[in-house]
């Protein structure tokens, strides 16, 4: 099976999940393999800064007079699509590929660009992760950093910030400069705060999640960042009842809303545990009503996420 077909299936499945809270019945009737939101493509979200979407995934790139800085190639098939999209905007090559984290679904595919001379930049923990779990489609980084790094090209820069473990141990926040938008991977999905994309919170370091959000907020206030771009789509039901893609960019206040989601959930889980609820069933002991305002709310998902938070209280992790 080709990667393109995998992505096609993945896009469809992910789209189903994205819509499950609002259009589950409709989504299930859609033709197998269809991309309900149209073909992959880029939209400008800032001066020379683009959000690229393929299926349910999003990433970002910045075009400068001397080349392109790309965040996450998102796999080999998506890398080709991104390359085609960039070629419509500039004849300059991709000079840098920045990994937002080390997960293969985001970091895979850089070879297309490194074969033409691009350098890969990532947090140093990503290099460690990729040495432990190497994948043929994931190129190890050429440049690593610990806290802050600025990729400079064509009189502009992509500023990279590390705020500790979040989703993965090496996720970073990328800010194209000049500009006011920050790309945040997986833990915040604009245009609104939501339940996490993955209810199992795989490789998510819950103990640092609130602190991570606070540090993003602090950085944004300090650096004049007013908007965020996300790594996944959000969708809703349109006026005609059909699935409708929501903007991939939202106000920075979404980070604050997302932090409040976590703070509320942590407090509710602790209260339930203190009241004697078993950690395995803690989600059934919290008031779900106030969580229904969050995108992707689903009773089962919230129960599972609450159980994961309970583990943090038990083990510290």
């Amino acid at each position, binding site marked *: 099976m080709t990667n393109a*077909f995998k992505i096609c299936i993945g896009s469809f499945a992910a789209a189903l999940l994205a819509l499950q809270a609002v259009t589950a019945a409709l989504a299930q009737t859609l033709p197998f393999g269809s991309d309900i939101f149209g073909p992959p493509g880029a939209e400008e979200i800032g001066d020379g800064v683009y959000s690229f979407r393929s299926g349910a995934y999003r990433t970002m790139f910045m075009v400068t007079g001397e080349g392109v800085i790309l965040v996450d190639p998102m796999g080999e098939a998506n890398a080709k699509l991104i390359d085609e999209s960039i070629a419509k905007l500039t004849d300059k090559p991709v000079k840098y590929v920045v990994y937002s984290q080390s997960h*293969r679904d985001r970091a895979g595919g850089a070879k297309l660009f490194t074969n033409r001379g691009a350098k890969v930049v990532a947090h140093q923990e990503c290099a460690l992760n990729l040495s432990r779990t190497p994948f043929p489609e994931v190129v190890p980084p050429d440049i690593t950093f610990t806290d802050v790094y600025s990729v400079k090209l064509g009189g502009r820069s992509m500023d990279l910030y590390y705020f500790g473990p979040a989703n993965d141990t090496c996720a970073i926040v990328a800010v194209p400069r000049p500009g006011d938008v920050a790309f945040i991977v997986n833990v915040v999905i604009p245009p609104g705060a939501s339940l996490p994309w993955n209810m199992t919170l*795989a*490789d998510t370091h819950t103990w640092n999640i609130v602190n991570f959000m606070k540090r993003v907020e602090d950085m944004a206030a300090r650096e004049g960042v007013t908007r965020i771009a996300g790594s996944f789509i959000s969708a809703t039901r349109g006026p005609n009842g059909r699935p409708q893609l929501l903007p991939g960019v939202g106000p920075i206040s979404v980070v604050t809303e997302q932090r409040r989601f976590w703070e509320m959930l942590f407090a509710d889980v602790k209260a339930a545990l203190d009241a004697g609820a078993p950690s395995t069933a803690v989600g059934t002991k919290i008031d779900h009503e106030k969580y229904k305002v969050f995108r992707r709310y689903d009773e089962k998902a919230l129960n*599972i996420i609450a159980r*994961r938070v*309970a583990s943090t209280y038990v083990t510290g*992790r």
Partner: protein
Amino acid sequence: MGTNWGSATLRAAIFFLAIFALSLGSYDLALAAPPRTPPGIAPTSVEPIGKDLYSYRWGPYRTMFAVTGEGVIVADPLSDEAARALDSEIDKLTAAPVKYVVYSHSHWDHAAGARVFKDQGATIVAQDLCAKNISETPHPDVLPPDVTFADDFQIKLGDQEWDLHYFGPSHSDCLIVIQPKPANILYLVDVLNPPFGYSMPWNALLPDDHIYNFVPFFDAVDALAKRDGVTQITGGHLSVIRGPDGKPAAAPALGPASAIADKRRFWDELLTAVGDEWAKGTYSEVIPDQLDLDRFADTHGYNRDEMWLLVRRLGSYYAGGR
């Protein structure tokens, strides 16, 4: 697939009774409240598991300690209250102080409580990464280690020798396998709980578990057991079995070392099944609904909802690599 411990329903019921007890007890430990166990099972116990070596059970948790003429070696202190209760039990056996505390890993529910031993002059030993973890996620009852090591470490006290082995990330990134001698058993925490080998994990979400190294980890433990002629293992938790009267009972602290290979086989078969489905192009979120979960119904503690969740988690592992 697994050892026959009665009907699947009974086995699942017993497993989840134990899970329930664990989930109650685990948070209680953080609050230093008395441990709770399933009906009919004593709250605590001390059980000899080798020459001068004992398993101590505090509710649904287990640890172990060795008594020598020169002092005592204790594995996980479990909690402040558990450690004080354990200290009282040790006092019944010897007047010698606790000289070493060894953390199996850095999770609060196992590593908390060493202060009562530290006050006696004990040295706390743990793998290097446990020190980092404890500094990142501190807890007032979890003392940082005094001595850390990377791969192997040996504690000698009196006629006891504890060999500490690190085989890479598994459950937490600093979990070690403790091999007390001359008993020559292995103490394995959370990754396996004897007598059950082919069994569900305690927590299907696998929080702080490093799936990519599961099979190599068990390969390394199995190789160690075979190399050193280890035939029995002990775990970090109570296992509940059916007693002679048909009611839930505490399983003996020791179980067969064959559980190591059985657990390795469980992960290998389940990972292969999920990986094959992913390789077909099935999106990770859809895999639990595509896979025939009941194919694993013989797994000890099998419950369809829990297996759904576990497969969902493993699907993420294939999609993201972690």
